[in-house]
Each structure stands twice: as C-alpha cells, then as structure tokens.
C-alpha cells in the first residue's frame, strides 16, 4: 500500500519535472527566433519539410472527412427537412473543430514524429554536441527553425484541410445527394462568422496547436536517451503526448471561445 502511494507520488513528481524541463527548453528556444530573420532559408526549409511534404495526407484526409460529414449530416438533416443547412453544418464543424484538431493530430503523426526522430538521432550521433563545441547554440540553430517552421505550417495546413473538407461535403451533398448548390453556399455564408468562427477556430486554435505540437516533438527528441531504443520511445511518447495535449487544449480553447462561462 505504502509502495503504491510512493509510486504514485514518484510518478507525479517525474511528470512535473518533465513539464518543467519542457518549459525551460521552450524558453531557451524562443530567444533564437528573432535571430532567424536574417536567415529565412532555415525556416522555409522547415516549412517545406514539415508543411509541404504533409500536404498529401492533409488533402486526402480533408477530402474524406468532408465527404463523411456531408453524408452523415445529410442523413440526419433530411429527417427534419433541413438538408438545405448541410453547407452550414459541414463548414461550422470543420472550421470550429475538425479542421484544426484533425490537422494537428495528423501533423503530430506525420511531421511531429519525424521531428522527434531527427532531433533524437542528431543527439545520438553527437551532432548536437558537435554544434555546441563549434560554439553554435543548437537551441537557436536546430530547434528554433523547426519550431517556428512548424508553427507557420500547421495553421496553413488547417486552412487547406478545412477548404478541401468543405469541397468534399459539397461533392457528396450537392453532387451525389441532390442538395441545392445555392442553398449549400448561402447557408454556409450566413452562418459562418469570420471573427467568431474562422479566426477563433482555424487561425487561433491551429496556431496554439502548432506551438504545442512542435514544442513537444522537438523537446522529446532533445530529451531522449541517446540510443536507438531511446529515440524510438521518444518518438512514440512525442506523438502520444502531442495528441493528448491537443485534445485537452482544444477543450479549454473551445470553452473559452464558444462556452458561456
């Protein structure tokens, strides 16, 4: 019994210590970002490898999520004779929730895991130590461009995911199930508010998710045990922690933005 309580306490202390290390790590990375202004190539290279190379999975997933939303929405709305509202349902669901959240989850699996593995392997092969000994701060030269590049890429990917999702919903609703195209677009236009929905949902939420996803991915890589097993564990931990953090943060942000608290 005592052992169980002690184990629980140890686990809580370890978790808090990791959180503290993660925060300190992020505070060491942040000052490196202004230094990237004269060297934009470092950031654009990361936007390419983290963002552009994630496009296929984002495009395909966005299309299918939108198509499923169109199909499910139609079968529910048609019972109430409200299938004309399909455009508004698809758009609000994507803009407020699914766009930023699913994009961030997909990003964590595709790009976040590769970030963790890359940084972990750089640590295991002493490349980070090599930078230190060359008087180059790895937090500024390696971590900061990746975090900043990822922070820029995630909102852009969320916008693309949402747009493709709306097109998928349109294709199923209007193209296959016969919803009126004018109603689809006009309902969407009248119900989606730029500030309330688009800025809050796609922009602010996905920006917050981008910060969290990239900071966790890079931290897990830098904090890993520098062995093949350590890198593998860090990669798994990075994806799991990022996913949980995104879902938890989503609830908090949704409550703040749309809840009546």
């Amino acid at each position, binding site marked *: 019994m005592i052992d169980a309580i002690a184990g629980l306490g140890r686990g809580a202390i370890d978790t808090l210590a990791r959180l503290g290390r993660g925060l300190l790590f992020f505070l060491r990375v942040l000052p490196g970002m202004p230094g990237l202004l004269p060297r934009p190539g470092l950031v654009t290279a990361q936007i390419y490898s983290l963002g552009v190379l994630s496009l296929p999975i984002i495009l395909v997933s966005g299309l299918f999520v939108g198509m499923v939303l169109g199909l499910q929405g139609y079968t529910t709305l048609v019972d109430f004779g409200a299938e004309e509202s399909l455009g508004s349902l698809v758009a609000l669901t994507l803009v407020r929730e699914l766009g930023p959240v699913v994009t961030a989850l997909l990003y964590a699996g595709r790009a976040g895991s590769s970030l963790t593995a890359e940084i972990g392997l750089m640590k295991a*092969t*002493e*490349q980070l*130590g*090599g930078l*230190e*000994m*060359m*008087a*180059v*701060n790895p937090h500024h*030269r390696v971590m900061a461009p990746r975090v900043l590049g990822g922070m820029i890429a995630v909102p852009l990917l969320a916008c693309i995911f949402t747009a493709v999702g709306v097109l998928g919903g349109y294709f199923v609703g209007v193209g296959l199930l016969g919803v009126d195209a004018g109603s689809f677009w006009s309902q969407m236009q009248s119900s989606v508010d730029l500030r309330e929905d688009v800025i809050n949902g796609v922009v602010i939420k996905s920006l917050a998710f981008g910060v969290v996803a990239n900071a966790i991915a890079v931290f897990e890589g830098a904090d890993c045990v520098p062995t093949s097993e350590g890198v593998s564990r860090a990669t798994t931990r990075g994806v799991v922690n990022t996913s949980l953090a995104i879902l938890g943060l989503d609830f908090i942000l949704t409550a703040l933005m749309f809840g009546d608290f």
Partner: protein
Amino acid sequence: MPLNSQSLADEPLVHIRGLRFERGDRAIFDGLDLDIPRQGVTVILGPSGTGKTTLLKLIGGQLRPQAGTIRVDGQEVTKLRTGALYELRKRMGMLFQSGALFTHLSVFENVAYPLREHTRLPESVLRVVVLMKLQAVGLRGAWNLMPSELSGGMARRVALARAIALDPMMILYDEPFTGQDPISMGVLVRLIRRLNDALGLTSIVVTHDVHEASTIADRMVLISDGKVVEGGSPQAIHESRSPWVRQFMDGLDDGPVPFHYPAPDYAEDLLRGSAP
C-alpha cells in the same frame, strides 16, 4: 584573478584541480588534478568507462563538475557564462568518436559550417579555405560526397578538417582510432601529429590504443578510478612499475581494475535458491 600575458603563457593550457564529477551515485572523478602543457600532444589513457570522454566534455564546458576548477587558457570554464564559453569554444576543436558530421550536408558544407556561422567570408574565400582544410586531411577530391558515402576513416578526417576550420588553439580527440583498419589508423595517427606540429596546436587525445598513442604522444597520462594514476613521457609510462600502469599496458585481466564486477559472495549467491 586575471592573469597577465606572461603568466598566462607560463601556465599550462588546461589546468585542472580537485575535480569531482558524479553521475547518479557514482563518482566518475574524485579529486582529479591534471595539467595539459601548451603545444604538444597529450594522450589520456584509461580503461573503458573510466570517464575519458567525460573529461573532454568537462574541459569543453559541456558538463559542469560538482567541485573543482578547470582553467583553459586562463579562463575558469566552470564559471563562464554561455557567451564567454562559446567565445572560448571558437578556439577549441573537437573530434567526436562518431565524427558527428551533419548527415544532411555534403563534405564541403560540413567543413564550411563553422566558417559560415562565425565569419563573414566572401564565398570565393570560404571555398579556398575549405579546400585547404580538406587538402590538409587528403580529402579535397571528396568535397561533394555526402557523409553516408564516406568510410569511417574518411568521416573522421572530414570531421578533423571541420575541427581545424577556425584555426583553433587546441583540439580534443575522443577515441579517434576506435574501429579503424590499420591503414586508416596509420593515416589518422600521422595526421594528428602533423597537424599539431604544422599549426602549433595543443592536442588532447583520449584513447585506449596504447601502441598508436605511444607513437605520437609527447606526454601520456593514465587515469583510472577517478584519478590520475601516472603521467609522463611515453618511455616513462612504458617503464613504470605501477600496478595500474602494468595492468593497462600489459593487458592483464585482473589487478587494480578487478575482473569481477562488485557482487555478493559467490557461494551465498548460488545457494540463495531463487532468481535475484
């Protein structure tokens, strides 16, 4: 107290006193004293796991000791702030055991990396400097290869070219001969000596390859059990009667470094009956 230029020149380049460094509950160094004189090759020998690489990291300021002082060129490394430490590191080169080349950059870009970071050389001048460094290690013709296309020995030579890119005062070599075939080893041994003499460097070579170390060392230091157990010229080390030195130099399986890892009594352990 800051040292004036004359007393600085008289002081050893690396001056370590009362060094204590622990990992977990285990003391890697416990009261280690060591001087590395300027301009020469000092070889640090010791059994595996004795903390040779850790010592290099302490000298380079990558690790902080629990106690003791480490002065490098008159500066107390343990007390330097990040900016000052980075300034000092610009005058140090380090050759890692793995080479630590950046795998996404070509040989040329790897050697150019510290120059691009710390200088504003025009591209034409930078190209000349990089080719000169690569020529010094015999790999000018490999400038466009990627690290994955290099053999282990070539990777270390590229790493050596990168380590001397900023014309440092000192180079730290971490196990440079490990895993090398006899030709690559011979090349590295001669390169270390030749570069040291041609560039007027101070070289600190950490290794357990006794024979190769003896051929290039001006001074050899044997560390074991967290302390310096012997130091002197290669000849003095070879002739030493110290049991530590004899066990290491003659490759004896038992001695001051025991063959058996500390364990409970053998008979008791066998008779206990259940798995530990």
